[in-house]
């Protein structure tokens, strides 16, 4: 009799505890239901396109401007024009030295701060009608061609994960951060 009463109290307390726990979860308050599925390194490799200015994220492969020039005429010239000037969609070369002048002319060569951005953007988005169809070697070669047109590298210089981040853009010192993390 006595023990059964104890058991009954214990069960009641247990029910209260469980109920409180359930209700605590019910009121979200930033609590996660923990439904994220852990993914593998292989899967991340497939979907990670991020390239950092340090070169972190650049894939294997390489190419130079000589190869890039041929690829450019096939995949890019229709929109960006011969020698990456005068096309219907923005110049990729020229405009050097105009950025601090009265009429700044922003091109890849005159304005962009890091060479890695060229690789990153071509790999993500170009050619416009068929993104994702170029090999990494081809993207490196096209990047090298754009850099060569802007006088950043020579036409035989091989661009790869090691050399590309070191290619110094003419306007690399032309930027400051408006955002400061302490804000």
């Amino acid at each position, binding site marked *: 009799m006595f023990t059964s009463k104890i058991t009954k109290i214990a069960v009641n307390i247990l029910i209260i505890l469980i109920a409180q726990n359930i209700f605590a979860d019910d009121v979200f308050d930033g609590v996660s239901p923990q*439904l994220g599925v852990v993914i593998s390194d292989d899967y991340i490799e497939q979907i990670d396109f991020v390239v950092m200015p340090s070169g972190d994220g650049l894939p294997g492969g390489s190419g130079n401007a000589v190869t890039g020039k041929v690829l450019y005429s096939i995949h890019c010239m229709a929109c960006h024009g011969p020698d990456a000037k005068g096309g219907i969609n923005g110049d990729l070369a020229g405009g050097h030295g105009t950025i601090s002048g009265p009429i700044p002319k922003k091109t890849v060569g005159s304005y962009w701060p890091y060479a890695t951005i060229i690789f990153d953007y071509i790999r993500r988005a170009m050619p416009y009608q068929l993104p994702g169809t170029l090999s990494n070697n081809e993207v490196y070669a096209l990047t090298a061609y754009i850099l060569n047109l802007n006088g950043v590298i020579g036409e035989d210089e091989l661009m790869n994960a090691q050399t590309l981040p070191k290619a110094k853009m003419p306007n690399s010192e032309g930027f400051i951060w408006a955002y400061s993390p302490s804000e």
Partner: protein
Amino acid sequence: MKETPDNINFAANNGLLDRRFFLKAGLGVGGGLMSASALSSEGKDRFPWMKQPGMPMGQSGPSRFEEHIKREGVGSQPGTTGSGASRTPIEYLDGIITPSRLHFERHHSGIPDIDPAQHRLVIHGLVERPLSFSMESLARYEHVSNIQFLECSGNSGAMISPKPLQRKASNLHGLVSCSEWGGVPLKILLDEAGIKPEGKWIVASGSDAAMMSRSVPIEKIMDDAIIATHQNGEPLRPSNGYPMRLFLPGWEGNACVKWLRTIKVTSGPSMTKDETSKYSDLRDDGIAELFTFPMGVKSVITSPSLSLNLTGPGIYQIKGIAWSGSGKIKSVELSADGGKTWAEALLDEHVLPKALTRFRSAWKWDGTPATIMSRAIDEKGNIQPTREQWFVGRAKNTFYHFNAIQTWGVNTAGEINNVYL
């Protein structure tokens, strides 16, 4: 039109009335009598649409008489159809919510047709546990819902033109919209993944054909960023990122990556094409500012405005929208004499942080030339600059984050033009 009392009090020069004029005057103002012909032409007292049952239920479009209210200035890069912008027709709207079908667009490689069953949000990089979330699992997380504006930082860029461009309010300032955005606070998902101490930024990438990407500091992400899945009560429209987008209250629209697929936690920004070559703000000393995220305090008079001409001297409602990426709108001031005298406008009831705020006032136009303008002030004390002030320190052809005061000129015929003072 009801006669105005002779002892009317003006709140500022050139006819600006007390902002509560309409409330004080009652409902009679602007009413007028229906013309006899409108009352009845054939039946005794029934319009044609009263003589038979109407259309079947389930219609969801606007009235056929309002079909001119659509996205304005739709334009794409040469050779493309989905790489450009369209604008919200702000001159035809009222209140603070932008109907989803009229929300502005800015895309970089078209609108992807995403199957939500196949879509995943992946969080990886400098985290303890790289995670993948399905739409189904995200639906079980805590959701928040807030009414907030979204503005492209290129909005109003045409205002840098040396001569004022004669364009409608939508074509000048229509890259801003306001919605009730619903979704999951990103902090919850990042806490689940576990940010490593060296994780200071994220790089967000979309699953459009351009894989549009932007870097965002972790402070903002952990503060009020959400994975938005809903807009004005319904799932996001494809043109606004279906099935999910990053939404950063008060920050430039370009950083609110649509069709969000991956979030990589990084030690610094990736310096993507958009955040460096496009959405950077060039100064007159040749140095460009990166990461100018918050949208400045701003207001626009949407009516009267170009194409919404005045039809004769008398009393008109001046109305418009104001917003600030720093918080709530504190006040909006109006001038009808080119900025010499100002009167405070009435704000609608819903004054919400980082949301469009509707302002109104009454104006008695006497038929002479006038210049009307609005100036917003936010709760942090930021004051909307004049056009002259805005240009100080900026390169001649930089146009992002234009938030200067806009002036509409009214001529004796009641026609409205975009004017510079």
